[in-house]
């Protein structure tokens, strides 16, 4: 009697489980299919295109050339200049953003007056269209027109390499520091207030409280923020396009790939660069995860 009862219950449970599974898959299928269709298939196609000689100006000359495009790109000084510029912009802007973002996160989290006002203003750089912000910076530094142009004498900062790069980095930092701060704030709220109080009872000053108590608790949040921002900075495009259009050797790899594709109409070379950028990003992500053991965010059910 008892045996049959528990037997049917088990069967029911597994039927229920199966229904739950099916519903789960069914609900996720549309999102998964769209994401796969628009990224998975094109990236495979990009790899295929990167193995072809394929110039839209000479469409009849399309042929399979193996890794020749890779050899062309990887021995090209423009590619390595752009790669260096991209790495430089990424490293400097993310480093400064981390410091500024941490300060901003502390302000947004702890300020005693006008918290709403601070948070609202901080969201403006995050939300504003990058192209709009880039135009604002461009005009600010245009001689004659801009309020900042006279700051360093009578030069035109956007026509020289070093100052152009500095302005690109400035624009990038202004735009994305609030995002960094919000990601860090998510870690900041996890720091137990009691722990801070206890540390200050034990005689820790505010710097010690910050480095010994807050930073260790926030470590996962910091690593996630760094990973996100590093990968995001590596694909920098909008700011450079508007500020310099890549003049005076300020192209990033994204600008270079875009120019080869849309301006040069060279699908083979453009795709090769696409694949190389994809690989670079994958390697950066891999290094982050290996080196720092960053746990993938969003996986909260462990």
């Amino acid at each position: 009697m008892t045996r049959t009862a528990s037997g049917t219950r088990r069967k029911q449970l597994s039927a229920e489980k199966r229904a739950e599974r099916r519903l789960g898959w069914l609900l996720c299928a549309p999102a998964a299919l769209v994401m796969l269709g628009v990224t998975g298939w094109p990236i495979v196609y990009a790899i295929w295109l990167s193995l072809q000689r394929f110039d839209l100006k000479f469409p009849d000359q399309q042929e399979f050339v193996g890794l020749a495009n890779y050899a062309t790109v990887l021995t090209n000084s423009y590619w390595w200049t752009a790669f260096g510029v991209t790495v430089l912009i990424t490293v400097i802007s993310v480093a400064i953003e981390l410091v500024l973002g941490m300060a901003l996160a502390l302000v947004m989290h702890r300020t005693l007056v006008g918290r709403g006002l601070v948070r609202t203003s901080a969201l403006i750089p995050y939300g504003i269209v990058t192209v709009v912000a880039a135009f604002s910076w461009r005009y600010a530094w245009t001689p004659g027109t801009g309020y900042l142009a006279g700051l360093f004498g009578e030069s035109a900062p956007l026509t020289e390499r070093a100052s152009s790069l500095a302005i690109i980095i400035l624009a990038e930092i202004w735009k994305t520091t609030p995002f960094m701060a919000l990601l860090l704030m998510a870690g900041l709220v996890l720091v137990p207030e009691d722990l801070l109080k206890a540390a200050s009872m034990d005689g820790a000053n505010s710097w010690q409280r910050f480095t010994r108590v807050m930073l260790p608790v926030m470590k996962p949040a910091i690593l996630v923020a760094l990973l996100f921002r590093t990968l995001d900075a590596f694909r920098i495009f909008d700011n450079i396009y508007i500020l310099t259009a890549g003049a005076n050797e300020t192209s990033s790899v994204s600008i270079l790939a875009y120019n080869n594709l849309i301006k040069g109409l060279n699908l083979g070379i453009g795709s090769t660069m696409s694949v190389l950028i994809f690989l670079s990003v994958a390697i950066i992500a891999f290094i982050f995860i290996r080196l720092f053991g960053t746990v993938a965010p969003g996986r909260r059910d462990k």
Partner: protein
Amino acid sequence: MKKSKWRWGFIDAIVVVYALVPVLWIVSLSFKTPATLNDGSFIPRAWTLDNYRGIFQTDQFIRALGNSIGIALISTAIAVALGMLAAYAIARLSFPGKNLLVGFSLMIAMFPQVSLVSPLFEIERALGLFDTWWGLILPYITFSLPLAIQTLSAFFQQIPWDLEKAAKMDGATQAQAFRRVIVPLAAPGVVTSAILVFIFCWNDFLFAISLTSTERSRTVPVALSFFTGDSQFEDPTGSISAAAVVITIPIILFVLFFQRRIVSGLTSGAVKG
């Protein structure tokens, strides 16, 4: 106590100035007259609305604005709808492959979009999607889905779903329980993710400049980069600034009215490692 209030007030002021100066500058430029445009003054010496009148008289800007609004709204609606389905499953059901989906959507969030530009350019030309609304809507949905799924599943996990059962016990039908109990609870999360997705689509430049070629589907950020002024002798600075201010207005409104939600959406589930 009073002293620390002053100090916070001062620090707050720095943040506000930091955030607002570039925005105010472009606003200032948009109100300057052609004669004072190049005087380098932060505040206009002579004010005019001509720049705004000018852009709203050109087809170029009005069509771009229509494209921007239409494409962003359709993408947002679809991305949030698909995201809701997936987020519900992630938050409430257990099924194999769930972690795979979460990991996959995370990968998309970090994907270098420029890597897709060349294959999508070619695929969309073959399918006839190049330079159409759908040619932009598809990548926008794809790249905003991770954002939608993440914020929505974080919100859905906080909903007390037992209330639905309780409502049914009290005699409500399944549909009533869902409409009267669950929808009001889920609405804030849906609004939040819709705003974040809209901002993302509104902001895009790379896809918009690569996958369009005419006014048929060019969005405002791209149109801005093509603005040349009414004649070749005219400086487009004023028109560009006015157009830039117009597309900044929705962002400012969102930020003013939904600050709390945007902050909680961006910080929710960002880290629980």
